[in-house]
């Protein structure tokens, strides 16, 4: 199946990277898409690319109190909802000996609290209407607690666990619940990092949409699936000696 089967989609965290690409590709396939993000200028630029299909909503996921009303406004203006994607996420640079609660709580606000605020709304709706697809963009980083970005890793681990719980609740009602675990993707979030191979945001979005039709956790590459199976199974005493 292709992304063409969706008629009404919402993407949270839509102004750059995978999110913006998801919006573009969904709109190109004929869906009406609500693009939700903080940056008005970027959203407006995105709307200009396909003004008939893309609707922009300025919102900071650090303001969860706004979510119920905005969710209802968006679904009303879209005319329905069959795909909801939570893509917002932050991964600030963290020093090797840095334990900064201010910085860490910022990650929690976006990657966890914002995710729960939005996904709860979408899950409640899908539970009632008994159809829909819920996608959470996680990360391979959530598979283990690593030295480099402790709270980011934990936040993606939370998301994977939360999505699994939603999947266990909702899949019996005909709802598709998908966790996507991208590896390194060439976006603003990874601009400060150095990887030998990075997937383009365009490819990441395309594969995400292709995999969104089947409930479960999905890596974007087969090699990631193998590599992270191994990484998940490395014994902890050994893992702490490794620099991965």
């Amino acid at each position, binding site marked *: 199946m292709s992304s063409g089967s969706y008629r009404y989609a919402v993407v949270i965290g839509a102004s750059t990277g995978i999110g913006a690409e998801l919006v573009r590709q969904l709109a190109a396939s004929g869906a009406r898409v609500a693009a939700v993000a903080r940056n008005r200028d970027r959203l407006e630029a995105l709307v200009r690319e396909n003004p008939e299909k893309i609707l922009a909503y300025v919102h900071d996921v650090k303001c969860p109190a706004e979510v*119920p009303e905005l969710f209802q406004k968006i679904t009303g203006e879209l005319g329905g909802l069959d795909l909801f994607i939570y893509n917002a996420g932050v991964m600030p640079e963290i020093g090797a000996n840095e334990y900064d609660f201010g910085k860490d709580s910022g990650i929690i606000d976006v990657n966890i609290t914002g995710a729960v605020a939005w996904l709860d709304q979408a899950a*409640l709706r899908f539970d009632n209407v008994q159809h829909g697809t819920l996608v959470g963009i996680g990360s391979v980083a959530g598979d283990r607690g690593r030295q480099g970005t402790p709270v980011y890793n934990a936040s993606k681990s939370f998301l994977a666990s939360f999505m699994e719980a939603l999947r266990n609740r909702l899949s019996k009602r005909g709802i598709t619940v998908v966790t996507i675990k991208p590896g390194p993707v060439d976006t603003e979030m990874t601009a400060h990092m150095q990887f030998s191979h990075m997937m383009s945001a365009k490819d990441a979005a395309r594969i995400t949409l292709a995999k969104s039709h089947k409930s479960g956790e999905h890596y974007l590459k087969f090699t990631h699936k193998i590599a992270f199976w191994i990484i998940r199974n490395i014994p902890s005493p050994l893992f702490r000696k490794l620099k991965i």
Partner: protein
Amino acid sequence: MSVLIPSDRIGHIEGFGQSSGADGYVYRPTNLEQIQDCFELARKAGRKVVLRGAGRSYGDASILNEGVVLDITRMRQILSWDPRTGVIEAQAGATIEDIWRLTLEDGWWPPVVSGTMFPTLAGALAMNIHGKNNPQAGTIGEHVEEIDVLFPNGELRTLTNQDRLFYAVISGFGSLGAIVRVKLRMKKIQNGNLQVLPLRCANWDEQFAAFEKYVPIADYQVSWVDCFARGKGFGRGDFHAAWYAYDGQEHPLSLNANSQDLPDTILGFFPKSSVWRYLRWFNNRTGMRMINAAKHRSGFISEGRPFQQSLVAFSFLLDFVPDWRKSYLPGGFIQYQSFVPKERAPEVFAHQVELQQAAGLESFLGVLKRHRPDKFLLSHAVDGYSLALDFKITAGNKQRVFALAHKMNDLVLEAGGRFYLAKDSTLRPSDVEAYLGQDTLAEYRKLKSELDPGMLLTSSLAQRLDF
């Protein structure tokens, strides 16, 4: 800041054919104030309202994406019943079943019923349903003494057949106001059974000849058409005429509501509740071709021999196999019914079936009925015939079925025919303009702007057809 509708109100609602559905905020009011509250809530939340009864319209007449769904099925009290005059007064959410179960024992039957007993009176009047006695009894609206209608402009009005508006609200597909109370004249009967005469028709000519012969002398008539048959058997089917038993005697046993109940098994042992599961195996072209042929060939057993059948069994054929529509899942089906003046009907319906056969999209069921015109504003009826067709919808055939329907629409319009919104899924705005005409549409729009100035009431159908 607009008003927030409680999130848990949202639900998925579908047309009876299950091929169209929508998510909406569902409210089931129990009194007038709650209906007004729903109107108010929708206004404040910037939403539209769709009226819904039992959801028996096949297409998208009682659904609306992201709207407030005002479902009237909890307003079903019988307010009064007078067995001497045969006039019943009920809240409009009462169903045809609620009515006949109460009145039958006193010797009264609804004057007009649909092929299923589950529609509400509100839905039946919004669509102005007809039955197999349409040429004799007209539509249900012709038997209504008065209705109370709550309009979105806040007015609650009692309408009778002396009011022009009566003829617009009845037939107005729930787009002008909510019918909340109905006073209906029932039909006096002595016997809960009908005398039924089955006749096999070898082709279209015999079908129409049977109607012309029996319409003047029977009380009900209907014919099934095998849309798969070609050549000599093109247009073949089984015709049934039925009469109330006028022997001047009361038959109290047959008037007991329990005596009317349909058996819950087939052939005495096969539980009907599971039949739809097996029906799925046959719900394809090959299976339906076989069933249609077998049905026609087995017709010789009862050919020409009158038999007695309960009013319920004869009238509510759609209720005979519970949940039969599920056999059309996952894609559901659409029903296509067109009404063509009698002079042109044989040619138009034959052409419609030819188009189906050429496209390999034969209707799995064809039902032919006779009709008479009526005075209702958005009437579907003509002095002629209707052919109702069921088309299975799949992901692969939807476009082709709709293209076929559009070709069939053109034939109907060219012949001066009409359509029935309770069944519709395929009309386009230009089709509606063609069959209703500019004057009728102008009158409808004038009433709409007076009674519903904020255009609060709508539906997926109304939006599709630019009403």
